[in-house]
């Protein structure tokens, strides 16, 4: 089951990269996000899964589709014929290296804790307050940039 999910993620991501139509690519990305969220749920990370689905599969995709419809006649001309074979070859080499040198992800059964032993609220707000501040800052930055970009439109055009 998990392998299927993983394979599904990879397939949809590859479609998102290789498809010529932007709309279809964005929708493939959205689907892969949803599958990713399911994987997160299965890995006992409900909050991450919720975030993933709601934010990425929702918000970012909306942004993408808005942009693509604004751009309209998309200019994706003349991709250079870089052979994918090179990348696949490199990937295989890399996998070999990884398989030989880096041990697998440490799944240590002896340290299994009951789920939810530490409250996520406590970690999020108290232990990682610095991250929250960073996120707030970045959100503000994003808002400002968008306002300036969009505001220019209002000034120039209609």
């Amino acid at each position, binding site marked *: 089951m998990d392998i299927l999910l*993983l394979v599904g993620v990879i397939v949809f991501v590859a479609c998102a*990269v290789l498809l010529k139509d932007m709309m279809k690519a964005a929708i493939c*990305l959205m689907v892969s996000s949803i599958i990713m969220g399911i994987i997160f749920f299965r890995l006992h990370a409900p909050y991450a899964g919720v975030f993933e689905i709601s934010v990425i599969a929702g918000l970012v995709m909306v942004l993408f589709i808005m942009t693509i419809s604004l751009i309209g006649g998309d200019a*994706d001309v003349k991709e250079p014929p870089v052979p994918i074979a090179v990348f696949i070859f490199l990937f295989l080499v890399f996998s070999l290296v*990884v398989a030989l040198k880096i041990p697998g992800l440490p799944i240590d059964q002896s340290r299994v804790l009951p789920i939810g032993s530490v409250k*996520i609220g406590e970690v999020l707000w108290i232990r990682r307050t610095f991250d929250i501040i960073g996120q707030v800052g970045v959100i503000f930055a994003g808002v400002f940039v968008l306002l300036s970009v969009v505001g220019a439109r209002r000034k120039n055009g209609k």
Partner: protein
Amino acid sequence: MVNNALHNGLAYTYTVFAMLFIGFYCIFTRRSMIRLLIGIEIISKAICLFIISGSYPQGTAVAQVLVITVIVIEVCVMAVGLGLVINAYRRSKSIDVRDFSNLKG
């Protein structure tokens, strides 16, 4: 489902790296700026998967918090990036990155 050990931790590693490679491929070879942003998106997803799968089976709060942070940042990056793409399109009617090399060197 709760106590199933996952099939193999290595599969997650391979998935993550495969997604990384696909994301890099996208950034390397695509000329449309929107495609570049898709590539960045893919890479961020790979990282999130890596963090979460690394914390199995605890489902540690720390890992989730990190992932939440990464997703928030990624959203802002996407928003800003798309705003810039729209602005660039308005200026020169093209979203080909090779047209925007005025500041090189």
